[in-house]
């Protein structure tokens, strides 16, 4: 199946062991200050009776991320959320609603979703943007590819200008756009 998924689509998905027990549900995805590979997921308690649960699932403990559940080998692979979410307050790096600006200084819009690729270690490969008029010829929401590593500050997301050329209206066709963008060397140059 397609390996691209919106981060918001993963939220609430049950986390189930191969023994068939549910251990929680995905609350949020966590990735490092450089973007790229996911560190893991924070979990919410399972069911309606469970309270908040300070547990996290490291990315390397994931057996599979399917359309209906995230599978793990056993509950023992869960950790304290501190092991996945580092000291830097995760909220400072929350990207939703962050402004997206190109490295030539054009404001493209605000982040409304994070695009993940799930083959192998899940990684951030793009952002969905609520587009400013400058991008709106491609739709009100567009998906733009990002380089392998893209610094994430939680204030603003600076993306290469040429990523705009590869913007897609939806996830359909994004895989090809991403491949073309990255082959073009879009990840190499750093504008800072």
């Amino acid at each position, binding site marked *: 199946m397609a390996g691209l998924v919106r981060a918001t689509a993963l939220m609430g998905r049950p986390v189930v062991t191969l023994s*068939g027990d549910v251990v929680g549900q995905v609350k949020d995805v966590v990735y490092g200050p450089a973007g790229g590979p996911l560190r893991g997921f924070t979990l919410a308690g399972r069911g309606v009776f469970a309270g908040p649960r300070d547990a996290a699932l490291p990315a390397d403990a994931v057996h599979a991320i399917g359309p209906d559940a995230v599978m793990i080998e056993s509950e023992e692979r869960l950790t304290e959320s501190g092991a996945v979410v580092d000291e830097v307050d995760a909220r400072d790096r929350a990207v939703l609603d962050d402004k997206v600006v190109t490295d030539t200084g054009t404001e493209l819009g605000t982040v409304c979703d994070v695009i993940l690729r799930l083959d192998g270690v899940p990684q951030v490969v793009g952002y969905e943007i609520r587009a400013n008029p400058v991008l709106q010829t491609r739709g009100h929401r567009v998906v733009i590819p990002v380089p392998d590593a893209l610094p994430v500050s939680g204030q603003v997301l600076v993306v290469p200008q040429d990523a705009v050329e590869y913007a897609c209206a939806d996830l359909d066709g994004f895989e090809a756009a991403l491949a073309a963008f990255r082959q073009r060397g879009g990840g190499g140059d750093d504008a800072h």
Partner: protein
Amino acid sequence: MMRTEARGRPVFSTETSSAVGTVADLVIDARAGRVVALRLTGNVGAGDVLPWQDVKAFGTDAVIVDSADKVVEASGVAALPHERTDVVGKHLLTDGGQDLGEVTDVSFDPHDGRVQALLAGQESVAADEVIGCGDYAVVVQARPQR
């Protein structure tokens, strides 16, 4: 035979040639892939569990036991799995995280009690594909293609 067919089947004792109860449900150990007991209703004794090894015959019309004494209380059956291992009503989930639906029925061999397949709507999964069975789901090996 299907679990849904088995339910409602009368249980007769050869000792007295009388009915000792009616099959209400199968007690299934999904990990072992076996029917380990029958749960009865309308039984004459105190218990309501008939261990599979005491089933003399599971016929097309009736289940035969030696005596009503074979129907015992659940606490007396060591091999009885915890209820969480029951499969019906649970999600049938592949190890790739795809939900095939809720388990609606189970087919089993009436001669030896071996579970043959789990059914979820139109999906059928062989019992030997089962990896685990917990409080949420029966986990089965993902198929090579959907």
